[in-house]
């Protein structure tokens, strides 16, 4: 399996550093995930309309170079770009890192929205309240090893584990 084959399996990646194609416009960034076999023009439009509905700012900026977007906008674009692949699972790496609180709320909403659509999300995050709110299962990792795992509901009900491992 070549690396580019993974996208076809339904695995989409939103890297921590976002990795927007900086010299491509917002629309071209989205097109990198749309120009694949089996996407009809109608379906393309549908997918674009969907992410524009989630992130109206991307429609406004669609002809602007990706590198000119703010950090939060780039994060939205990275998520939107992953959604273009119509993935079964999205690997979401620290999506709220370095974002202002208002943006964090918006990212949280989008995680919920994706979840409602039935997309599995593997979220790596240091923001505990966000994670407990968004996740079903939680794995606490320390130095690369899983130290504890439980359902998010359990952890929400019993915060001792959180205190023990994360000291918060």
């Amino acid at each position, binding site marked *: 399996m*070549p*690396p*580019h*084959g*993974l*996208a*076809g399996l339904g695995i*989409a*990646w939103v*890297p921590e550093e976002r*990795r927007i*194609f*900086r*010299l*491509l416009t917002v629309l*071209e960034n989205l*097109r*990198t*995930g749309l*120009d*694949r076999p089996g996407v009809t023009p109608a379906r393309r439009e549908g997918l674009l309309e969907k992410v524009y509905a989630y992130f109206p700012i991307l429609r406004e900026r669609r002809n602007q*170079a990706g*590198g*000119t977007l703010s950090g939060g906008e780039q994060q939205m674009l990275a998520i939107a*770009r992953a959604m*273009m*692949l119509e993935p079964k699972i999205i690997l979401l790496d620290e999506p709220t890192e370095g974002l202002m609180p208002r943006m964090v709320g918006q990212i949280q909403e989008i995680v919920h929205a994706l979840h409602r659509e039935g997309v599995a999300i593997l979220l790596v995050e240091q923001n505990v309240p966000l994670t407990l709110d968004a996740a079903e299962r939680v794995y606490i990792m320390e130095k690369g090893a899983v130290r504890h795992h439980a359902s998010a509901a359990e952890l929400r009900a019993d915060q001792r584990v959180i205190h023990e491992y994360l000291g918060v």
Partner: protein
Amino acid sequence: MDQIIIQTLHGLVNGMVLAMVASGLTLIFGIMDIVNFAHGDLLMLGAFVGASVLGVTGNYWLALLVAAVVIAVLGARSPDHDAAALDRTRPADDHPRHVRRLARDPEVRALAVGPVGATDQRAGSGRLRAVPPPIPWYRIATAVLAGLIITGLWLFLKYGKYGIWIRATTQDRVMAQAMGIPVPLVYTGVFAIGSAMAAASGVLFGPFAGVTQTMGFDFTLRAFIVVVVGGMGNLGGSILASIFVSLLESYAAIVVSPAQAVIVSFIVLVLTMLFRPTGLFVPTPK
């Protein structure tokens, strides 16, 4: 006054010639970080293929097409751009380390001499004359054709599906793969396009540069200069730099002899490296 107009035309024509050679070079460099020294040899082979086809059929367009296709296949199929091998040997930092040659140059040149026979048609070339000759119309026609081909390439890169694939891969190969872009195919395609551009340049400019085994070298040297001046891997920058440097050389030829005017491009190169090493015509750094 007349002289300035003539020199401007000369500069523009030479600029288009150069831009066409440089665009293939910069495309390959931009996407793969390979300094493709084979480019000049592909140009030369393209000229020989074109001259042979022209000799047999008498059809210029057919010669152009056949040369481009044959050299595209040759360029794309040559084994040393194997993507996996590149990934293994590619250094972690962003600096190019790969220098690619088609083969040892003398062998390739011997290959070209074999079937066609070497005749240096450059004797008496206008280059060393003190007063530049008036511009023959076929040079202008050639420059226009080169301009059209470059415009075509630019439109393809700007709006085509594969153009977006190429540009995305140029900027972030790993992310491009994560988006499902078949990067090995993109590499092969870029080598084919770059090689076809080289071959087409060879056919276009053979009639006035002279079809010789060493013709590629002259072009490649100047093309490398403009590729560096324009910002390596930046297509628009290379094209602008080609025209800019050629115009400067043309105007310099009013004052000094054309042979000495060549120095201008090296002065531009040195100044660029000293004061703006990322290139003169790169987009604003982000």
